[in-house]
């Protein structure tokens, strides 16, 4: 007898990913689809994809999906959730989307304690536009707009958005994970599961920041990109539970 040990999750469409080799988005998409299936919430989940590399997320998730303008994911998700409070609403956002152009929307959604789940993918650059400096670009990291590396005096230092969000009173659960190793991928899935459970329990704002490799714009091999997260990125963005008030 044949036994199925690995298959496409129920809430992933049968579509090949457009992401670059070694990119973390496809892993994160899969983890989310697995969680949505395991929690049996696929028929009541509405996702809000961003502008950025993951803009086409609606082609992959087999749940209702409503595209937000750049940075406005938390505001659009708020509108959906307040209209349909018994549905599960997530926004999926990159670092430029959430920590630059959409900072205000994100902080205020967290502060209001909107009962939504935000998946914040941090690859420390603007991926889709070709690798410009993001708010999360590390000091000394090269980008197409920080030739010679990000300089604190000229470009400012990377922003700790998750830590900032943690001090808002409405944020209930915030964790930073990574998808650069099997161990970290497992932890990420746990964190995503917890974030959705927080919403299902109606506790308030939940967010998982996921450090994700971008070999194309980092100009590294996928293996080196995964290694660089362990060696460098976590020095600036340590992997940890930043806030947990789920009690």
């Amino acid at each position, binding site marked *: 007898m044949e036994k199925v040990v690995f298959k496409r999750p129920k809430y992933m469409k049968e579509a090949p990913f457009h992401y670059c080799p070694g990119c973390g988005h496809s892993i994160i998409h899969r983890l989310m689809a697995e969680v949505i299936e395991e929690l049996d919430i696929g028929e009541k989940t509405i996702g809000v994809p961003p502008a950025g590399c993951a803009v086409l997320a609606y082609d992959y998730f087999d749940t209702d999906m409503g595209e937000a303008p750049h940075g406005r994911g938390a505001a*659009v998700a708020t509108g959906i959730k307040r209209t349909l409070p018994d549905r599960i609403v997530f926004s999926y956002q990159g670092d430029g989307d959430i920590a630059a152009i959409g900072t205000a929307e994100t902080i205020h959604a967290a502060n209001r304690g909107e009962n939504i789940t935000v998946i914040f993918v941090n690859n420390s650059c603007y991926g889709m536009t070709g690798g410009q400096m993001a708010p999360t670009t590390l000091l000394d990291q090269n980008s197409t707009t920080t030739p010679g590396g990000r300089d604190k005096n000229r470009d400012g230092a990377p922003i700790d958005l998750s830590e900032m969000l943690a001090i808002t009173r409405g944020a209930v659960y915030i964790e930073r994970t990574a998808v650069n190793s099997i161990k970290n991928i497992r932890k990420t899935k746990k964190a995503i599961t917890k974030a959705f459970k927080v919403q299902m329990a109606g506790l308030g704002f939940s967010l998982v920041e996921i450090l994700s490799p971008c070999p194309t714009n980092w100009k590294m091999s996928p293996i080196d990109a995964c290694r660089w997260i362990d060696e460098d990125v976590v020095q600036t963005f340590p992997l940890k539970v930043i806030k947990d008030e789920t009690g």
Partner: protein
Amino acid sequence: MRGSQVIGEAAIRAGCRFYAGYPITPQNELPEFMSGAMANLEDGTFIQAESELAAINMVLGASMAGARAMTSSSSPGISLKQEGISFLAASELPAVIVNTMRGGPGLGNIAPSQGDYFQATRGGGHGDYRTIVLAPAYGQELADLTRKAFEYADRYMAPVMILADGMMSQMMEPVIFPDPVNLSKLPSKPWILNGAKERPSRIIKSLILGTVAMEEHNWKLARKYEIISREIACAETYMTEDARLVVVAYGTAARVAKGGIKRAREMGLKVGLLRPVTLWPFPGNTIRKMGRLVKDFLVFEMNTGQMLDDVKLSLEGKSNVHFYGRPGGIISTPDEIAKVISSLYYRQHLEED
């Protein structure tokens, strides 16, 4: 009832169940009204948003989820909302946006103005689209057009703007409200995002990467705008039957003009009023037909000449188009308009048979 509150009460009666807004004068009475009204409804949501951008994008989300949703602001705030209005138009989502115009550009002032005509009727945001624009002039019309705004938004799946000004939002007038809409009896929306239960999943988006598909979408919107133009263009006429001079004005300017026309009639001048009720679609056909008999039109606006362009386009150079404008938040008096009318009347020798 105060104008802003009339819009609020009419919106609730039209089934509006989601409002998000940001404080800005001279329309704060509207969000204040909505906060109380929504609190009294079991299924109502009021959010004081952190910004105009957040407010319009919350409305975008609520509309995706099927709510009759509204936001409101005044000129500088409406500029900020244009991103969301473009996305609403592109994604074919219904929503109602109230613009209580004030003096501009920039921060301007808080006095009544009609400076946002171009922004409202030309789309306002980026891309090839139109926004339905309704221009109330009376308290009763604030109520009636607010009801219509929600109906048009749903029927045409498009953003609808109510273009008022600080005068109308602050003025108190008696109003008879229509009965509340029974939300359960409205046509269902088979496109909303409410979870893919026993149906395929749905996508609402505006990204269309393929140029051929994008062109198709642009033409699809254009065909819709053609239908809207045919179906809802609307204007009121007043004493135009024998008129030799017709004043074209909307909103507060039209009310002032009416007073001026009454005085001019007392002087024996044959003057009438044409008041566009829809600014987009512009009631060009009504003006064009009138142009067969009337050789002189006076466009009166509380700006330096914006609707003037649409009147000229409608008349195709076949009549004389004159202009009188008071920008900056100045409200003309009926006497002032009567003087403008009479001097123009005699200058054009309209008294001669």
